[in-house]
């Protein structure tokens, strides 16, 4: 393994930005604790996936171009979502296929890391669990699992925490039903999927759900709240930071 970079960029994602902003701060603190300087370009917004997956390539390209400009240089870009990381790593090159920006898009794609992937594979981070015993379930987004192949890195991080018991839930590999605009274009199919996902999570008897993707959490937490359940999901960056920071630093 080559020596870790001194500086990284953080891509927060538009959903973290508005709905789960603390996950971004936790990720910055986790990275900084490892001696990494974290840059957060204020010009960043969204990876462009909503337009791309709806078939609007021109619109997706203009948003993608804005991100490529905001993240100039050659430092790695750590992304707080497997889905957005998948968009930037695997779809940007084809989005600019045959266009002058394709070389730039390829170079940009090569700099993309999903957070848990970066923490384990690049930093080889060692975590010390300082939290209370807890039973959790891990929800892995479909893009993290299948496109980025980073389910193992989330697991590896959680397995470093001595007092965290990870429990399996029924049909764990199945989609939560978010799917971006799918959730409003086909609301009853999406509702059926998130009903089954939340039933499985509740049935496995955990106190908390952890995921590295906030789009899934927006869906899962929204359904849990509507059902009146106490269970909630939290971004893995928040979970890891809260369990590994020194006790006096808490509160």
């Amino acid at each position, binding site marked *: 393994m080559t020596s870790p970079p001194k500086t990284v960029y953080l891509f927060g994602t538009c959903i973290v*930005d508005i709905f789960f*902003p603390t996950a971004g701060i936790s990720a*910055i603190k986790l990275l900084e604790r490892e001696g990494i300087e974290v840059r957060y370009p204020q010009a960043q*917004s969204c990876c462009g996936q909503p337009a791309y*997956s709806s078939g609007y390539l021109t619109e*997706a390209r203009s948003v993608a171009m804005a991100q490529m400009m905001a993240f100039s240089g050659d430092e790695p870009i750590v992304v707080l979502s497997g889905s957005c990381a998948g968009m930037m790593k695997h779809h940007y090159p084809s989005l600019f296929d045959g266009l002058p920006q394709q070389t730039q898009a390829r170079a940009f794609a090569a700099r993309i890391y999903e957070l848990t992937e970066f923490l384990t594979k690049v930093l080889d981070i060692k975590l010390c669990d300082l939290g209370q015993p807890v039973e959790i379930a891990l929800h892995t987004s*479909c893009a993290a699992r299948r496109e980025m192949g980073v389910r193992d890195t989330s697991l590896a991080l959680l397995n470093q925490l001595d007092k965290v018991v990870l429990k399996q839930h029924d049909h764990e590999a199945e989609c939560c039903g978010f799917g971006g605009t799918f959730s409003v274009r086909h609301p009853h199919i*999406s509702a059926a999927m998130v009903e089954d996902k939340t039933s499985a999570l509740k049935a496995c008897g955990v106190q908390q759900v952890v995921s590295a993707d906030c789009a899934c959490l927006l869906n899962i937490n929204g359904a849990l709240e*509507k059902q009146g359940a106490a269970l909630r999901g939290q971004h893995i960056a928040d979970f890891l930071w809260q369990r590994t920071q020194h006790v006096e630093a808490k509160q």
Partner: protein
Amino acid sequence: MSHSHPLHDFRAASSHAAQDPTQRHNTRAAMDFLMQRRAAQFPDADELSRLRDLGQRIRQRALSRLPLLLEQLEARCVANGIQVHWADTPAEACEIVAGLMRQANSQEIIKGKSMVSEEIELNHFLEAQGMTALESDMGEFIVQLAHEKPSHIIMPAIHKTKVDIAHLFHDELPRTPYTEDVDELIQIGRHALRQRFFTAKVGLSGVNVAVAETGTLVLVENEGNGRLTTSAPEMHIAITGIEKVVEKLEDVPPILSLLTRSATGQPITTYVNMISSPRKAGEKDGPQQVHLVLLDNGRSQAYADLQLRETLQCIRCGACMNHCPVYTRIGGHAYGTTYPGPIGKIISPHLLGLDDTKDLPSASTLCGACSEVCPVRIPIPELLLRLRQESVTPENEPNHPHTVRGQGAKYRATEKWLWRSWARIYSQPVLYRASRFAATRLRGLLPHDVGAWTIARAKPQPAAKSLHELVAEYQATQGNQP
């Protein structure tokens, strides 16, 4: 429009099905069973991966030479005594079958399982001509008896429980006692079917693989009805899509191994039929005539585009639907197409046009469960993305090749305008900052009910401050430059 009945409303049918707890429970149980069957057949991930690579290569190699292979298939079949017919449309294919039945002086045809015969709506066509089609596959027989359509390409009656079938047999078959015993039900069905093989003069079957170098038609099945259909009547008509051809006989074993293990979790089916000619002089059985009907019906449209061509790699195992979280929630009938599930979403726009299938490409979370199990590695999510692009690109769009019939079926000027505005906000930091500010500061103004989202979820709650703001504040406290 290519077909006569009114446009199927996928959105209404799928919403209805997704809210039907009995349907949901039954379909999930059936799909779980099929997923477990498949998984048990592929214990070694590396072996599976290599076999899928091989399957993909065989299918891609065949498709890359498809026109040549079809000519070779025809030449070999004719040399073997099999007569070959070409049909561009379902209507042409139906006419060919009806013409052959008239030629055989038969008003009746007995059918093995054939999804292409469903695609051309052969039974319906023959009934309108005063002719009869009798389904001999148990699942197809049940579906026909219930006046329904298949809900799955491998298990046509998977939507029916044993209680449904018990009632159906008792009500529809003469002198049949009511029983819920599965073995007895199978015996009742088999007995009813058996009689029909003795009288039928014409049998019709599908084809799983057609081999160009030898002119061999390969057909796999478990009930023996396929063998009876293709050997007992005087005339056998095989019908298939033009994409089913492979180059060589040696391509067959890996394809069958992938097909049966992916479809039903069997290492091999009970019957593997390899048909290479009609009865020859001195032979005691087999049909006097064998006919092969090759159907295009929009496949050449998919073929003409290198990306969309991947659709035609399909060997019709059904694993994509068994593993699809959408199919699992809505079942096969909600799609309103012959081929449901993920493969149906990518093939149906070619068969029926995007105008008739415009809600199918969007009915996916692009979760990738389908492409993860596809035995020939069809990148189904990528093809869905492509079809989404085609469906929102108007026909008169400059510099956009017209590749799919019904292109632009989902195009709406207002939606285009919304995405343009969205792109403007998200590509201009000043505008994005303003919208972020509005979302966080005005979060209290969000109505309790935000349309489709709140059917199953509480309204989303923006944070008091965005990450952009929190980072700026954090960096100020750390004395860092932003």
